[in-house]
């Protein structure tokens, strides 16, 4: 990576039971991914309010990823199914408003998928880095 390249800020909402554990497993196995990814623990992907996603973009995030248990594996049975609909709708709306679709992602990562977690984050960071700074959904007051 070149030094001049824009370092993106990625906020990852991870459900406590699968994805956060998956991220822990990635750590256990020392599977590297960029430090640009900052994880916020939520009990379930269904806890992620669109408000949080927009807030992240407002405060300067370049990409937001939501990770939950695989469909069918939700610790709470159905949470990720609701999250799947909600985020499909929200992200589709952001796309409709012309916000680059690569800045948002939903990924299902189980507690056993440390490798997938790491690979997903590497890929997401790479894609968001290519997009450069988030200009279309930014709050200029929050920029330096």
């Amino acid at each position: 990576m070149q030094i001049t390249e824009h370092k993106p800020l990625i906020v990852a909402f991870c459900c406590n039971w699968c994805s956060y554990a998956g991220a822990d497993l990635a750590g256990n196995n020392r599977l590297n991914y960029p430090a640009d990814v900052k994880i916020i623990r939520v009990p379930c992907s269904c806890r992620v309010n669109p408000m949080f996603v927009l807030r992240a973009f407002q405060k300067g995030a370049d990409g937001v990823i939501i990770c939950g248990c695989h469909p069918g594996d939700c610790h709470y049975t159905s949470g990720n199914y609701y999250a799947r609909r909600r985020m499909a709708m929200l992200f589709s709306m952001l796309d409709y408003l012309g916000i680059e679709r690569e800045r948002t992602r939903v990924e299902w990562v189980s507690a056993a998928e440390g490798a997938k977690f790491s690979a997903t984050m590497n890929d997401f960071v790479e894609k968001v880095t290519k997009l450069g700074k988030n200009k279309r959904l930014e709050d200029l007051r929050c920029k330096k």
Partner: protein
Amino acid sequence: MQKITTDALVQKAVELLNNNTVSYVLGWKKGEFDYDITPYVFKDEKTLKEEFIYSDFCGVNLSKYLVAKTKELAGKILVFLKPCDTYSFNQLLTEHRFNREKVYAIGIPCEGMLDIDKIKLNLEGISSIVETKEGVKVNTLDDKTIELEKQAILLEKCKNCKSKKHYAYDELLGEEGDVLDNNRFDEVAKLESMTAEERFEFWQSQLSKCIRCNACRDACPACTCEKCVFDNPNSGIENKSPANSFEEKLFHIIRAFHVAGRCTDCGECSRACPQNIPLHLLNRKFIKDINEHYGEFQAGLEVGQRGPLVSYTTEDVEPSDVFNKGE
């Protein structure tokens, strides 16, 4: 021209008022001019006869008023509902927003309501507006007469009317209509087919007009929260005026999301907007997405429907595939 006359409605209202079926009549009241009609709660025969009106300018959806009025007023309320208002009526009942027992609903036909803004695009200084078969005849202050075709001056929400059928009423005046074939998603599809840059430009220019008067929210029959998150200092997203393009977007995205799966596509948001922002295109986007991915869903068809965002199937489309459709 509306098929049913003001007189017929007044007659009905007076009858129900006099035989004590209802104590109040929620309807429309004449204004200063021919077009500035205000929703009004009538209490007596005299005012009804003098000031009640049902014309091409009765675009206001009265359903939302029932939330406040059924709580505020002691007696039963007669409300006149146009076909599209009945959807909102049902949706509000689904969400327990008012007591059905306190309302006597009369379905009335609607042939599409007119947009005074569109009329005024063609002229300034109106002395009177007369309804004709094809549309309206406008007499101006400088004594000119201009005829306008109805199709061109319909409210945005009436241009792609989805239904002339009433889905809720205690009594129906006039003839029942049908659900219509409509092209209400064409504009959404057109936007979808644009590039992300074009879409961004479009919405940026539209939403930057927003003055955050909250008219869209306050007119919206789905926005009946006891306290809106945008008014609640503890919600974390309260704001009164958009400080920049982010806050303009934030408000409209969150609002559209909050009504997603609940919005009946009544179009009040766009009608109320003083800046002519096509807000219904946000809601319709959600409706279109829901229809495409989770099966056809029309909010307000019946009381007790389970909305698409409070349901799921195990086979739902993945968020990434929502983007990838048609590519």
